Structure formats: structure tokens, C-alpha cells
């Protein structure tokens, strides 16, 4: 090594693979529709650019599988192969070195047969080894850009700008000549100098493919290649070029060779091209025996495969989930910045009743972003149901009908696969409906199921078709301090209300002049009826035999029930969120009485006949048969024994609460206890 010039082993800048998302879409499509279980090796196209502002990026996209590659300015297409393996084991276990050598055994004969001189693009190739996990939309892949590991040559000094060897006029001639070259000749070519002019020539004009080797090239010539690198070192293609060149011209050993790396600016000029002066050692190692290299390093810098996790944009289930999520986020971003979108995702809702109301409520919960929904119902889907009960279809009615709770839970998944929906098939025991010896065991089992379900969920929706069926869940939910949303239907009227919680009656009496009642002190469905003012529409709503409702009533009540819940969840006090009391509608509502979505009423009573609704507020009733302290304490004390006593005789509740028999009797047949079942069910 001489003193005045520095020589270093040449460092080729390897390619970095860059995959367009459409590549995975095409690969998936081919795997599913063409290859299926066949493990085929396919010819594909990839491309790199010799633009000076991008770097050594090697790209594939959806068009890589086309018969004819798409052309793009300043890009060069390379033919390669993809080996898509059927299993991750095959992907891992394939001998990577042997695979590269086998590609080398195809390329090297091209060099030996001199076909590369007329088809220089045959020197370039690439491999993609892949495995597609189409359940998860994970794509494991590994690119290789095969090159012989030998010969080793040296770069003299640093590379120089092309202006050090060519004048402006010559650069112009280079640019024109390069443009007029056939596209496949552009990767490796020659530049000759005649006088002051330079000429661009394909390799076949300089090298003679009919000679096994060539010694003297008697004209003034430099070689050139399109250079993907934008740094001081040459790009990967030069490595193949040098191997081929030295095989054909062994006499270059011991000399210095000048090679131009063509680099184009965005506007197409070649002024940023680079000049490499390369020292070829005397004794070159043979290519044939040296083996092939070129596997790409992964992000950690190791030789290893990469992973494309495409699930977020390709998995239809994830897409559905994130798209429906986005709708709720948009509400936050655009309209209600303080809304908490996470609380809906995590709140567990228990729906007692999977009929008209249950179906409606479940759909609205989904729309609001709730993802945990459990149905309790004992009924089966009948032929009259699907037109009103929006989660069911005709098929659910066949063969005696599916269990409503199960059909509802499964059909909800058909709407949104990521929903966590469950079904509990259980009959809800009722006061005054005696449990015979034969049914005792089943009743106790059901009780356990229902009580556990209430304890495990955050919100209990009472969407049942009889008044009595609401008693047990009202008591148990009050005992656990759960949010209860109750909805009941009349022919053209509805009631939607929230309940207070247990053991709060005595804490503080509600003053008649108060402007609000704390949420925990609000009355339940049973307190309310006793204390409610006389009902002017009694005749219309009292008719319990007529179980048909105007179809819109369930949709309205179901929607309101969910909206009340969401408003409550968005209130910092949640179940304790106050309800306005003695509100005359004139004054402004104090901000502490409102949540993010506004003030939350205790109850909404609506009348379709007049298209009106009112929002009465009532405090807990001290002698309530469902939520009073005395009843809850009795339940805490005696548990199932107490419940069974109540089921066997409604009179027992009367004893416990001190209500007169008359009142109780009236209550049990009171208003708004409409079935949302259809006539054939009762």
C-alpha cells in the first residue's frame, strides 16, 4: 500500500427492503385463491431507485406479482423469486445458506456463458422467503440479494464527484446517452471517450461474449452502474458487476479500475453521480468456491427474518372493532371533549330479558361502545319475535326456536365479533309464585346463577315482561349497590328509570324543598309506584292482559335506557349522580347537577298518544318491598331462605315491611308492568 493513497476493503451498502402494504394484500389473495395449500416458488418483481435523495431501499408492492412489471422513472426493476412456506417450521428450518447458493448456481452460469454481457440485468436478483399467518395477519419474511462473497477488491481514497472526471459538456452527453439506453441495459454499461466527447454504450459493444476471456480493451473506457447508494460507498449491484467483469477480464488483476456510480437527481440530471477508483489485487480468489451472501439484516442488526404485523389494517375483525370505536372517538374529538370513551368499554352490562327491550338495549349498548353484555332469559325465539325483537331472525325460530339468551348473545357477535356477549338461561323466581318441591333444586340453582351474575356485572338492566320478575333483581342489585336501569312498556307509554342503592334511606331524609335528590337515595321501581301520584292514564296503561305495544315504544324506551346509563357513567358520581327535584324548568341548572352529557333524570315517563314525556323524581320509600333497609337487611340475614319465603307468599313481604295487605295487593297488579312479549307468549 503506497503512502500517498489509502486503500480499504470496499464496503458495499446493502439493500434495505421496504414493503408496500398492498404487497401483503396481493400475497394473501394469491395464497387464498390460487396457491391454497401448494407451496410454490413464484417469479416476482422488485425495484430500486438510483435517485440520490432516497437511499438503498429495495421495494416490492402489490404489482410485484404482475406478469409485466410497472415502470417508474429513475427506478430499476429486478426479477426475483418468492418462496412462501406453508408453516412457520418450514420457514424457520429451510437451509438459508444452501438457498442462496442455489440461486448463485443459477446466476454464475450466466456469467460463465457470457449471457450477462448482452443481458446485464440477469446479474441482479432477489429472494423473499416468507410465511403468512393468515389467522393473525402476521407475515414473516426475509429478503436476500444474492452476491458471490468473492472477489475482494479495494477502494482507493474516497469516492469522488463525477465532475472530477467529466466536464459539464460531457455530463450532458452522459445524460443523453444514458436516457437512450434500453431500460435493461441501464444497470451496467460502459462509457467511452473519443477526443473530448463521451459515448454511452451497452456492455456488449465493449466485451465480446464469444471470447472466454478478454485481456486488453484497447479503447479508453470506464464502466458504470446505477448506484442506489446516496453515501460515499457504492451500492450492492457493484459487487456483482465486479465479479462478472473480473471473470471476463482477468487481466484487470493488479490494476486500478474506474467505475462510475450513476445517481440521478429528482429532476433527472446525473451531476451527483460518483466515481470509484478500485484497486484489483493480483491474486483473486475464485468466485465458484467462495459461496454466496446477501441475506438482509433485521431491525436489530442481526441476520434474521422480519415481521409485518398487518392485523390492524387487514384483519376484518380488528377493522370492525376499531372502526366502531372511531365513531365514539369522533364524538369526543368533535363534540364532547370531556367524554370518557374507555368507561363504556369496561362496563359490564347484565340484561334481564332478551325480548323486544333486551334486543333494543343491546344494540344501543354496542353503538355506544359497550363490549361486555350478558343476557338472562328463559324463553325461546318464536315466529312472531323477529319482526319486533331486533336481534333475531327467522332461522332462530326454526326447530322449536333457539333459547333467546343464547341467540341474542350469538347474534350480537355477528354484528360485532369482538363483543364479549354471554347467555344465562334461567327463570327468574317471583314473589307470590310458590316454588314446589319438584322445582326447589332448580330454583335454588337459578337463584345462585342470577345473584352471581348481578354481583359480577356493573349495570343491571331490568327489561322483563312482568312486574313481579323485577323484584328479585331490584333487591339483589340494591344490596350490591349496582347501577339499575329499569324499562317497562305500556301499549303507547313507557317508563325508564334508574334505581337508588341499598341501605341509604335513613342516612338523610330528603327535604321537600331540596332542588335535587342524591342518586343513591332515588326510589326503585317498587317505591315509585306506591308514592307516585295517581295516574291519569290509568285505564290505558293498566290493561295487563293487552300485551301488545306500539312498536316504536320499545325502541324509544330501549334507547332512553341506554342514554340514561351513559349519562350516568359519564357523571363523576356515577350511581350517586343527583336527579333534579322540584325543578320548574325556568332556572339554569347548576353545573354540579349535570354530567358531561347533561342532567340525568330519575325517571322518564313517555306517552306516545300525545308525543310527550315527563321526568318525575321520587325518593326512596321507607317501606318499599324491594329496596328498603328492612328488606335488604332481611335478605342479608337469611339469604335464600328469605327469598323462598317471599316466593311462596307475597304476604310475607307485607309482614316484613308493614305494608297493608290491600296496598300490596294493589301493587302487584299495578301499572306499567307490561309484557314486552308478544301475545303468543302469554
Amino acid at each position, binding site marked *: 500500500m503506497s503512502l500517498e493513497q489509502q486503500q480499504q476493503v470496499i464496503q458495499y451498502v446493502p439493500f434495505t427492503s421496504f414493503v408496500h402494504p398492498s404487497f401483503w394484500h396481493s400475497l394473501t389473495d394469491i395464497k387464498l385463491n390460487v396457491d391454497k395449500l401448494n407451496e410454490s416458488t413464484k417469479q416476482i418483481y422488485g425495484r430500486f431507485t438510483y435517485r440520490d435523495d432516497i437511499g438503498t431501499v429495495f421495494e416490492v408492492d402489490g404489482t410485484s406479482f404482475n406478469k409485466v412489471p410497472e415502470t417508474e422513472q429513475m427506478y430499476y426493476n429486478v426479477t426475483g423469486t418468492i418462496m412462501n412456506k406453508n408453516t412457520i417450521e418450514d420457514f424457520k428450518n429451510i437451509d438459508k445458506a444452501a438457498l442462496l447458493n442455489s440461486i448463485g448456481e443459477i446466476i454464475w452460469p450466466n456469467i460463465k456463458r457470457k449471457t450477462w454481457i448482452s443481458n446485464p440485468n440477469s446479474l441482479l436478483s432477489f429472494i423473499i422467503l416468507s410465511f403468512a399467518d393468515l389467522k393473525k395477519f402476521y407475515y414473516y419474511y426475509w429478503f436476500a440479494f444474492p452476491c458471490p462473497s468473492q472477489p475482494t477488491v479495494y477502494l482507493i481514497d474516497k469516492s469522488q464527484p463525477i465532475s472530477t472526471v467529466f466536464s459539464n459538456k460531457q455530463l450532458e452527453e452522459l445524460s443523453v446517452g444514458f436516457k437512450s439506453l434500453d431500460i435493461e441495459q441501464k444497470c451496467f454499461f460502459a462509457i467511452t471517450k473519443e477526443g473530448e466527447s463521451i459515448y454511452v454504450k451497452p456492455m456488449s459493444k465493449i466485451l465480446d461474449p464469444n471470447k472466454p476471456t478478454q485481456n486488453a480493451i484497447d479503447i479508453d473506457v470506464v464502466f458504470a452502474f446505477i448506484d442506489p447508494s446516496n453515501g460515499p460507498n457504492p451500492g450492492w449491484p457493484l459487487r456483482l458487476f465486479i465479479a462478472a467483469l473480473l471473470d471476463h477480464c482477468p487481466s484487470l488483476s493488479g490494476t486500478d479500475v474506474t467505475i462510475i456510480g450513476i445517481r440521478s437527481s429528482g429532476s433527472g440530471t446525473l451531476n451527483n453521480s460518483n466515481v470509484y477508483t478500485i484497486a484489483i489485487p493480483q491474486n483473486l480468489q475464485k468466485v465458484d468456491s467462495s459461496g454466496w451472501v446477501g441475506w438482509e439484516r433485521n431491525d436489530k442488526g442481526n441476520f434474521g427474518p422480519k415481521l409485518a404485523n398487518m392485523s*390492524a389494517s387487514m384483519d376484518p375483525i380488528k377493522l370492525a372493532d376499531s372502526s366502531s370505536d372511531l365513531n365514539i372517538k369522533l364524538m369526543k374529538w368533535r363534540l364532547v371533549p370531556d367524554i370518557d370513551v374507555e368507561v363504556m368499554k369496561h362496563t359490564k352490562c347484565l340484561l334481564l330479558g332478551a325480548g323486544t327491550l333486551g334486543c333494543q338495549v343491546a344494540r344501543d349498548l354496542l353503538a355506544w361502545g359497550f363490549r361486555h353484555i350478558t343476557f338472562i332469559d328463559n324463553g325461546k325465539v318464536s315466529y312472531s319475535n323477529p319482526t319486533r325483537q331486533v336481534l333475531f331472525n327467522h332461522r332462530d325460530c326454526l326447530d322449536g326456536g333457539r333459547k333467546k339468551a343464547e341467540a341474542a348473545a350469538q347474534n350480537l357477535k355477528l354484528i360485532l365479533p369482538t363483543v364479549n356477549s354471554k347467555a344465562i338461561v334461567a327463570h327468574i323466581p317471583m314473589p307470590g309464585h310458590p316454588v314446589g318441591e319438584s322445582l326447589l333444586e332448580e330454583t335454588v340453582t337459578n337463584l345462585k346463577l342470577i345473584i352471581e351474575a348481578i354481583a359480577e356485572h356493573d349495570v343491571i338492566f331490568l327489561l322483563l315482561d312482568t312486574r313481579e320478575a323485577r323484584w328479585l333483581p331490584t333487591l339483589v342489585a340494591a344490596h350490591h349497590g349496582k347501577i339499575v336501569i329499569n324499562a317497562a312498556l305500556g301499549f303507547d307509554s313507557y317508563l325508564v328509570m334508574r334505581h337508588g342503592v341499598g341501605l341509604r334511606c335513613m342516612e338523610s331524609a330528603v327535604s321537600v324543598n331540596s332542588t335535587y335528590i342524591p342518586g343513591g337515595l332515588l326510589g326503585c321501581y317498587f317505591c315509585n309506584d306506591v308514592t307516585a301520584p295517581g295516574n291519569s292514564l290509568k285505564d290505558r296503561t293498566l290493561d295487563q292482559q293487552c300485551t301488545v305495544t306500539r312498536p316504536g315504544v320499545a325502541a324509544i324506551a330501549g334507547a332512553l335506557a341506554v342514554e340514561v346509563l351513559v349519562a350516568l357513567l359519564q357523571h363523576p358520581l356515577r350511581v350517586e349522580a343527583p336527579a333534579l327535584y322540584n325543578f320548574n324548568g325556568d332556572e339554569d341548572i347548576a353545573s354540579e347537577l349535570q354530567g358531561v352529557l347533561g342532567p340525568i333524570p330519575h325517571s322518564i315517563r313517555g306517552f306516545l298518544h300525545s308525543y310527550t314525556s315527563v321526568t318525575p323524581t321520587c325518593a326512596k320509600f321507607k317501606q318499599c318491598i324491594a329496596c328498603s333497609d328492612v328488606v335488604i337487611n332481611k335478605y342479608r340475614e337469611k339469604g335464600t331462605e328469605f327469598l323462598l319465603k317471599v316466593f311462596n307468599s307475597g304476604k310475607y313481604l307485607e309482614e316484613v315491611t308493614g305494608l297493608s295487605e290491600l296496598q300490596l295487593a294493589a301493587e302487584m297488579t299495578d301499572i306499567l308492568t307490561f309484557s314486552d312479549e308478544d301475545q303468543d307468549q302469554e
Partner: protein
Amino acid sequence: MDIDTITPEDFLASAKHFIEISDKIHDGWRIYEHKNEIHKSYIKKEAFITFKSQNELCLYKIEYVIFYNLSYGVPSFSFNVWNSPGTLLKLEEIRQMCFIQITKEEFYSVITQQEHPIFHRPYFIMHPCHTAQLLKEFKNKSRNIVVTFLGLISPLLRLNLSLEYGL
């Protein structure tokens, strides 16, 4: 004209003219013309961009697509950004990259991720009602609706529009 919308034919003609200029200045836009359904024609440009994430300079590719929005009768702007394995960046990641110089609230009210009407894959799409508003003001002065449209939105994006387009 006194209406605020343009026809698919207007859009295509403007797009073709735009591509002529792009070709001349090597700006990289390409046109994908749909012969049978003109409104499915679109223009597209891909470019590499680099961003520093966790102190490392990362290479991403961005794709800009301008297509015709059939229901609003205006050009629509959509884009995607992905990393080297082809994984798309999420909305929040894009916002954090300060790819768009806009406040958080405005960003979310302008850009949403949805299924692309032409590609049927997720893209970030600029809400067309904003476009309609913007174009309304410029419609009558515009020589090329695509140029006007890109001129209006390019300040929001890392999309440097050459003066050669005759802004």
C-alpha cells in the same frame, strides 16, 4: 358557475392537466384512469419521508391519493403512511409525527381513518365537507380545480407543491 360541486369529467380533465405538469417537473404524480367509471379515476404520489422516533431516524413511505368524492362532488384527499414492513401508522402516531401542522382538535375534525371508497382498505381521508367549504370560495377563480385544491391543503401537509403548477 354558481354551484359548489364539479363533475367527474371536470375532475378528470383537471387531473390530466395536473399530471402533464407533474411529468414535466418530475414530481412523481401518476394518474389511474378508470375508463368505464370516470369517477373512480384518481391521481397518486408516493414519497419517502424520515422522522425521528425515539431518537432514531426512521424511514417511512407516504402515499397521497386524490380521488373524486361522488356524494360531495368535490376532489377528496386521502393518504397513508407505513414503515418498512408495510404496517400502517395509526391516526395518533400520524398526529404525533406532526405530519400535519394543525391543533389536535382541528386535526381530528378534519382527518379520519376509514375504508377508502376506491381501494376498500383503510386510509386517512380528509373530510369532504371541509373541501366543499374551501373550494366554494376559490371555485370561480380556479383554473385547475386539482391545483387549487392541493394548494389549499398543502400547507397542512408535508406536501410541497411546486410553483410550476401555476398556483
